[in-house]
């Protein structure tokens, strides 16, 4: 029996993850609140929270195709921005009062241009320049970029973002990360009470609703899971998913239907967002955010010079979660993760960890081939 049957809290979070404009967004907007959309996990939500905005991570949930978006992208653009931008062209993101895109990969960065070129009427749009290399010099540069973003948000939304408010927002988001770390820690046991696909839904919901509500829901869920029986998968191969933007629980569900259990992940909507905290409060909050983004947590493969840190984070997870095998998932045409996976595959092999790498589209396709590969992988891992 899954959490959908046993936990109303999980059902609520899964509903939020399963749609774009959800009841929490509606209630925020009906109270006069504004919503700030953003792409990519490195964008500092804390600045938006400090400005009294609701941060909403953009995704392609509900998309059935990319017919409208295709004219804006080259053939070698991955399908995550295609689907999410297609949803934008269909009006699914009309509820956003602002959009912040960062200079992560080229396709995401071009989505900012496409958004403007297509004439979408989002009232506030901003391109955040994030360094593509890790280092102290880049921290200083990035801090200045965050200062400019803060000023632009203050001006457009008539908000005043004080250091005090920023630290309060950082503490709120740190509390989210701490609770998410607790959730992941529950999966270290031999028979976790929450599956990988359920965890994806919980994580995605966290970037789609007010943090205070989310933290309260997570506390309730953690209390429920703390006393819940195991999920009936004791002895199953323990897997980790590493790779691209992964906001659709169905990919994990396909893997878990073959008999494995996904116990952790290193993906943009999952494990990567909660591995580190920013606080405790000390000094300049913008500097703390900048350090977090490019020095302490350079988990986006688009940040050069930081692969050893990402490799170590993956290996630490493999150890802590007793992972039997890693599934490397790359969206077709994703260059940053394609290169990262090329390195990771050999590094995991060296560490004696089996790895299955596959390329998928944003919407899972060729499920028959996928299940064959997963099943064969599980057969080799279990051996």
């Amino acid at each position, binding site marked *: 029996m899954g959490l959908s049957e046993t936990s109303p809290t999980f059902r609520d979070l899964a509903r939020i993850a399963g749609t774009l404009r959800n009841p929490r967004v509606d209630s925020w907007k009906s109270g006069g609140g504004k919503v700030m959309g953003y792409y990519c996990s490195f964008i500092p939500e804390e600045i938006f929270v400090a400005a009294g905005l609701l941060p909403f991570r953009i995704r392609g949930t509900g998309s059935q195709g990319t017919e409208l978006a295709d004219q804006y992208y080259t053939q070698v653009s991955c399908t995550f921005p295609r689907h999410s931008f297609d949803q934008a062209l269909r009006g699914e993101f009309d509820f956003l009062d602002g959009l912040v895109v960062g200079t992560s990969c080229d396709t995401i960065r071009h989505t900012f241009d496409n958004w403007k070129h297509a004439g979408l009427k989002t009232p506030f749009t901003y391109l955040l320049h994030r360094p593509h290399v890790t280092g102290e010099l880049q921290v200083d540069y990035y801090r200045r970029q965050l200062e400019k973003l803060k000023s632009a948000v203050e001006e457009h939304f008539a908000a005043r973002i004080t250091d005090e408010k920023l630290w309060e927002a950082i503490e709120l988001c740190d509390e989210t990360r701490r609770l998410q770390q607790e959730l992941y820690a529950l999966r270290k046991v031999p028979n976790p009470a929450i599956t990988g696909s359920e965890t994806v839904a919980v994580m995605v919901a966290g970037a789609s609703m007010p943090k205070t509500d989310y933290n309260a829901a997570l506390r309730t869920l953690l209390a429920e899971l703390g006393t819940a029986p195991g999920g009936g998968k004791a002895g199953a191969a323990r897997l980790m998913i590493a790779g691209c933007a992964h906001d659709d629980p169905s990919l994990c569900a396909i893997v878990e239907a073959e008999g494995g259990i996904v116990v952790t992940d290193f993906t943009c909507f999952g494990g990567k967002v909660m591995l580190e905290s920013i606080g405790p409060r000390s000094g300049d909050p913008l500097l703390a955010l900048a350090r977090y983004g490019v020095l302490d947590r350079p988990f986006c493969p688009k940040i050069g010079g930081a692969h050893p840190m990402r490799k170590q984070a993956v290996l630490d997870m493999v150890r802590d979660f007793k992972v039997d095998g890693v599934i490397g998932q790359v969206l*077709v045409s994703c260059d940053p993760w394609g290169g990262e996976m090329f390195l990771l595959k050999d590094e995991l092999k060296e560490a004696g960890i089996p790895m299955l790498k*596959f*390329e998928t589209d944003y919407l899972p*396709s*060729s499920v*028959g*081939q996928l299940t*064959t*590969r997963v*099943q*064969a992988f599980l*057969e*080799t891992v279990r*051996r």
Partner: protein
Amino acid sequence: MIVGGVDIGSTTAKAVVLRGDEIILGTILRVTTKPEHTANLAMEEALKKAGLSSVQELDYVVATGYGRQKTTFANENISEISCHARGAWHVCPSVRTIIDIGGQDCKSMSVTEKGTVAGFEMNDRCAAGTGRFFDVMAKVLTCGYDGISSLQNVSETPAHITSQCSVFAESEVISLVNNDVPLADIITGINLSVAGRAGGLLRRVGVKSDVVMTGGCSRNAGLIHALEKALGVPILMLPVDPQFMGAVGAAVFARDKATAAKAVPVATQPAKEASHGTV
């Protein structure tokens, strides 16, 4: 002990009965739109050849291939990657590398000395370089699959097929035909193109002798010739029809499972009685 293995592939279905060490091959059948029905038909053929009348006479059955999960008379299903490796190793223990080219998939596997899969690679999504690709080309060239696979059509001056995509490659071949390029040159070019892709998959797992080919495309002598040329190593011919390797591997697994678990005979398992269908 008598066990069975059935392989419901994307294009054809094959079944095998293993009576002691004797491998009894069924018949290669085209799949129907109902995998369970196809499995029944394939197993019926193998049972007939073994002189058996019902799947209930088998101690254990393993299904593999695309339709493996719909084969309700099987005790369990195992991926075709593990089954091809196990089957090829069973009939040829010196095998260390396998290229399996079926109707829709192309897989490479490295095999341990114990017959287990050490690593594998599989084509992503598209059917380029598989049996479907040859079907399309045979149709364009009106030479049939025999024409594509005949060593008579190996040329020293092959045409260059650059496109990896079946649809675009078809356009290229049509252009070559209309430029009066000799048929043998085109056919050799097609086989070299597929061999190039298969060679890439093989190199990812590491090419270690003995190398064998399994799956329906192992009937293509022209492809084997091209692959040997691309890899620079001989492709060993298996002593049992390589197209049956998935089913052979499934049957060997069935025997292992039945022996290890001292499995309850199929005939006494009530859950499966209702699903025997025509078998």
